[in-house]
């Protein structure tokens, strides 16, 4: 497990628009944090910056080790990233090859890698899918393959970008169960505010590339004025009365 520390982290798009604006943040080892904010708040940019996938300014420290260009590769070995769209991660002819991809960089030999992959696939209940092509799987199944690729890495840090997008309620429930089984430091960016309440006690409210608030999820999400000010809505489970028609 690893801690994450960000100091004055900023990132600008090539057209000069600021996506992240002097972010200071400290996430403890083993913590689970949700990242919430309207479209364009900077959630994805923040995750990409932590993974060293975009060139940000400021400091990123993983387990108190500063991330430099030299060290990025090594630090990434301890990280997994579940990207927004499963198609971004799946490009090999078979599911097994997708899950195994990159496991060799973790100093696993091939047999170990395959074993790990099988294990991960069975955790997401996709045993027997190893020789299928991800292309022919349903959306929910592809999502699960992506989560399996992350699980197979057994990383100290796992970053999730909208992992339940387009899933039906059952697929979403499956994800929540898997999330609770995972260990390590987890960051979860999502629009699904009910999901935040079910997975992370602590959350970060992000808007315009800045941290608006950090704290208890139920408390922040229950603040009607705050939600409205940032184009969000208080989730139904935090309001006392059912929706009436």
């Amino acid at each position, binding site marked *: 497990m690893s801690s994450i520390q960000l100091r004055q982290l900023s990132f600008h798009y090539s057209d000069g628009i600021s996506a992240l604006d002097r972010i200071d943040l400290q996430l403890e080892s083993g913590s689970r944090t949700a990242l919430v904010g309207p479209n364009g708040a900077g959630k994805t940019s923040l995750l990409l910056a932590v993974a060293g996938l975009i060139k940000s300014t400021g400091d990123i420290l993983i387990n108190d080790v500063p991330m430099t260009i030299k060290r990025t590769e090594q630090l990434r070995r301890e990280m997994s990233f579940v990207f927004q769209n499963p198609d971004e991660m799946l490009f090999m*002819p*078979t599911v097994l090859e997708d899950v195994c991809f990159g496991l060799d960089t973790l100093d696993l030999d091939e047999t170990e890698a395959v074993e790990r992959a099988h294990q991960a696939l069975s955790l997401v209940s996709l045993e027997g899918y190893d020789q299928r*092509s991800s*292309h*022919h799987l349903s959306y929910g199944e592809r999502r699960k393959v992506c989560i399996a690729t992350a699980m197979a890495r057994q990383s100290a840090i796992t970053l999730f970008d909208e992992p339940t997008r387009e899933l039906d309620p059952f697929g979403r429930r499956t994800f929540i169960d898997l999330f609770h089984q995972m260990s390590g430091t987890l960051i979860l960016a999502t629009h699904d505010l009910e999901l935040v309440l079910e997975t992370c006690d602590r959350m970060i409210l992000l808007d315009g590339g800045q941290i608006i608030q950090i704290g208890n999820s139920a408390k922040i999400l229950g603040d009607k004025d705050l939600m409205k000010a940032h184009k969000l809505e208080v989730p139904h489970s935090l309001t006392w009365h059912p929706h009436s028609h």
Partner: protein
Amino acid sequence: MHIPDGFLNTPVTLATGGISAVALAYSLKRVNETIKPEQIPLMGLMASFVFMIQLFSFPIGVGTSIHLTGALLISILLGPMVGFLIMTVSLLALALLFQHGGLLSLGANILNMAGVGCFIGYGIYRLIPSQRSSLIIAGLLSGIASAVLCSFELALSGMLDLSSAFKTMLLIYGLTGLIEGVITLFILEFLRKVKPELVEGPG
């Protein structure tokens, strides 16, 4: 490799432009006659794909990368006439949007890449029954054909003398063509595994 503006003289520009324009008109006519409505968006998306492939630096190791043309692949998937049309469209867009190749030298580039790849390369591919060797031979021979064309164009324009032009172009186009053949083979193998109905398509 795209020839920029400034390296071809007037007669070569006019000749290559003329031949390409005729070939384009002919392929448009043929495609217009046979096209099915559902192929129209497909051609657009494939043009986009070919465009992307041409911009994409394919790393071949030792710090160098090459750019594929996609001509062989697209002709195998959609037939040489549609392939030529798509290649021409993408070469025009490359010149206008990325300045890969000039506007007045477009005719020459169409001949060297689209013409050779879609007609000579594809023809050779169809001649040889074994797919593996046919793709590699087709890639290599169309590379050589492009080299011949390109060196004649440059030599006739008084840029280079024919023999040194040919040696240089052979090295560049021959290697690129060979690698294009190999990569096309890989792509077809992938398609056969993941979506076999594409490879059994027209052509």
